[in-house]
């Protein structure tokens, strides 16, 4: 359900005051995206169901912590979802994306329709990512979207873990400089 950024901010503020109708609106507006994030990191629907419940219980409890002046509501929600999914992924045995083969596709960034819907923040970040070498950009995106550890990446690309760490740190430093952090 498309909801404007302002409406989502207002709904979060009302949720912080215990308004369940506003909480429902937050859920309906964001659960498809947050479930997509969680499912891609965990690769298992049963675990994703558990984690998504925890995500929204945390949103209900901590909606008052959201500060509209320091970031977008969807980024705040996605951070909660990613953190809980990563914590869960680290607790579990190796993951599989067998249930979701379609999710193995990384976003290409070449879709004009998708580009139209991107926030200004994402456009800036995407431009900086394009400044990385192609394989380093893919490395960063693989880790971000699938929560892969250095060890998992190392096994996937057949390079030492230390090399993966160096590549990641350099790529991230390059991104930081590009974004002016």
């Amino acid at each position, binding site marked *: 359900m498309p909801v404007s950024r302002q409406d989502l901010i207002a709904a979060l503020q009302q949720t912080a005051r215990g308004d369940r109708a506003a909480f429902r609106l937050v859920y309906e507006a964001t659960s498809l995206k947050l479930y997509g994030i969680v499912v891609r990191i965990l690769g298992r629907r049963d675990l994703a169901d558990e984690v998504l419940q925890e995500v929204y219980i945390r949103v209900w409890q901590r909606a008052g912590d959201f500060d509209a002046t320091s*970031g977008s509501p969807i980024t705040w929600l996605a951070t909660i979802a990613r953190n809980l999914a990563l914590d869960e992924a680290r607790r579990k045995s190796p993951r599989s994306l067998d249930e979701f083969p379609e999710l193995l596709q990384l976003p290409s960034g070449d879709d004009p329709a998708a580009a139209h819907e991107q926030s200004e923040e994402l456009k800036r970040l995407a431009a900086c990512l394009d400044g990385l070498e192609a394989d380093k950009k893919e490395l960063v995106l693989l880790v971000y979207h699938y929560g892969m550890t250095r060890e998992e990446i190392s096994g996937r690309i057949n390079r030492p873990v230390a090399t993966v760490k160096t590549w990641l740190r350099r790529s991230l430093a390059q991104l930081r400089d590009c974004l002016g952090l």
Partner: protein
Amino acid sequence: MTEEDDIDGLAAEYVLGSLSAAERREVDARRRTDATLLAAIEAWQRCLGPLSEQAPEVAPPADLFGRILARIADQSGTASRVAGVVPIRGGSRRRLGLATAASALAACGALAVVWFGHTQTGPPGTLPASVSCGTRYKDFWEQFDRQKYSRISAEQLAGLSRMALRAYDACEAGDEQDAKALFDRLRRMQF
């Protein structure tokens, strides 16, 4: 490389998601007292957060929001309802008697009848109420919605009741590992 660079790199990898379980735990502990690390993490969250816009949209189960609301309702009403949770002892095994079971199981319809027939075996005892174990047990049944009940066979239901009681017993016995594993399995069951 300076210490600041290390902190920034660590924060960046923490937010990106590439740290191992042990490294993640270390950062989680350290960020509570290290303002520099916390600020770096928050900066990287703002920096990389927009990538989440690229995540695919996947529909969660239709009943998930109902399950979330049930858990929220239970958390906010726990204090007032816990007074009704009275574990009892029957034979050598601890059994659970819930003074408020009728309301807790109302959502399960006739399940309440089956459940009582299965569990009420022996005179009620007077063990002190256990807040966390009783609440977890109730949590499970409150989330066991009508849709699931309509799909489950009588045999499955009996097995489910036994497993729920084993989870409660393990919790009461202080075997948290076993209790958590059983409660987790119960929540994940598909029918």
